């Protein structure tokens, strides 16, 4: 039996492949039209993960790489739900994040920004959503940092997010921004997204109710994956 089909991706909601203000996209964007493919087993199935694949501490970036103490920075909780376009929770799906430290420096052998590495901060985490699609991470707020695009571009504070869903065609990587950050409107990567409402969807809201008083401030970030189609009537076989 073929698994459920999913709604087509709204390509006008996503950034175009070719977005010349984000210069790296110029040579890395296919020039031919994408070939539209109806889902088969290859697209409608996908990998699954379980608690055996991860450790309980993997979602705590304050602790998961700590050597001699806590990392420097503003302690934050990032939480939310993974939903599909039908607003149904996506349970037991893998959410992975990565980010710069509080100074805007990544722990990566290719990052040479002058802000220092934090010896107590790795910068990645992962977790599985619960039965209601909830996930939670604890981390420090990443810093803004400069990047080479125009002469003087700064990335807004952001956390990279990777999500699976149940079908490989739902696979998604995006970035989470922080409410109130004036750099969001100035960033050529953010601005590859053509619709302001879509940009707003990537801005996590300050969520005072979810803070831990006297300890950590909280942001809420829901992630939406493509929805599953309900099949009321079978397709007429092609060619008939």
């Amino acid at each position, binding site marked *: 039996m073929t*698994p459920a089909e999913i709604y087509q*991706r*709204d*390509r006008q*909601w*996503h*950034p175009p*492949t070719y977005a010349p203000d984000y210069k*790296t*996209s*110029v*040579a*890395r*964007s*296919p*020039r031919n039209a*994408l*070939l539209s*493919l109806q*889902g*088969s*087993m*290859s*697209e409608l199935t*996908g990998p*699954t993960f379980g608690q055996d*694949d991860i*450790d309980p501490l993997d979602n705590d970036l304050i602790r998961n*790489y700590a050597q001699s103490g806590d990392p420097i920075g503003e302690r934050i909780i990032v939480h939310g739900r993974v939903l599909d*376009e*039908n*607003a149904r929770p996506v349970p037991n799906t893998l959410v*992975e994040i*990565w980010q710069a430290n509080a100074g805007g420096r*990544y*722990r*990566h*052998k*290719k990052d040479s920004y002058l802000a220092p590495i934090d010896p107590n901060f*790795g910068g*990645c985490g*992962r977790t599985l959503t619960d039965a209601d699609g909830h996930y939670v991470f604890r981390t420090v707020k990443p810093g803004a940092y400069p990047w080479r695009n125009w002469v003087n571009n700064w990335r807004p504070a952001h956390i*990279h997010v*990777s999500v699976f869903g149940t079908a*490989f065609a739902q*696979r*998604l*990587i*995006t*970035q989470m921004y922080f409410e109130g950050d004036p750099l969001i409107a100035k960033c050529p*990567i*953010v601005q590859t*997204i053509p619709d302001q409402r*879509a*940009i707003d*969807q*990537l801005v996590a809201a300050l969520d005072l109710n979810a803070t831990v008083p006297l300890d950590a401030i909280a942001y809420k970030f829901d992630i*939406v*994956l493509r929805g599953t189609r309900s099949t009321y009537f079978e397709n007429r076989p*092609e060619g008939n």
Partner: protein
Amino acid sequence: MAQPLTYLKESPSQTAGPYVHIGLAPGDAGFDIYAQELGRDIAGPNAEGTPITVTGTVTDGTGAPIKDVLIEVWQANAAGVYPGAGEVEPGFRGWGRVVPDFDTGQFRFDTVKPGPVMGRNGRLMAPHLNLWLVARGINVGLSTRMYFGDEEAANAADPVLSLIEQAHRRQTLVAGAEGNHYHFDICLQGDAETVFFDV
């Protein structure tokens, strides 16, 4: 005015950026943090079928290798069964992550050759690997497939390859075969631009 529809919108994609390895393959970023990194073994220890090695390079529109790309592979087992859709060998994940050499841009991974999989309308699909590419400069992950050069008859009957209107472009999805070693270059632009799918 009509009644409003209440669907949510998919979260818009953003580039994985140059440091995708920190999150998805931290060992390649240069540090160990997880007891086990996911995606390092596609087929697992008990996979049946023919072990194969795949090599290749992803190049940009200038012909330069894309050294910071991360590729995800999703495949059926040798019997043509995807994990989750039927019984597979214990430990067969069918999924993995591939990171090229940061100096040369060449990638290499080991797996088993998948079997043919039933496609839509009862048309059998030739053996193939599903690939998903993310990198700096790629705003929405790119989906493509790798078919096998030693499956000429199956490829000729494949319902997806035959959707490609320009017949010469079908070859961009077919890996060169030399025994159990397959070579598959992916070009984001140019005369040999790989066919990418809107899945």
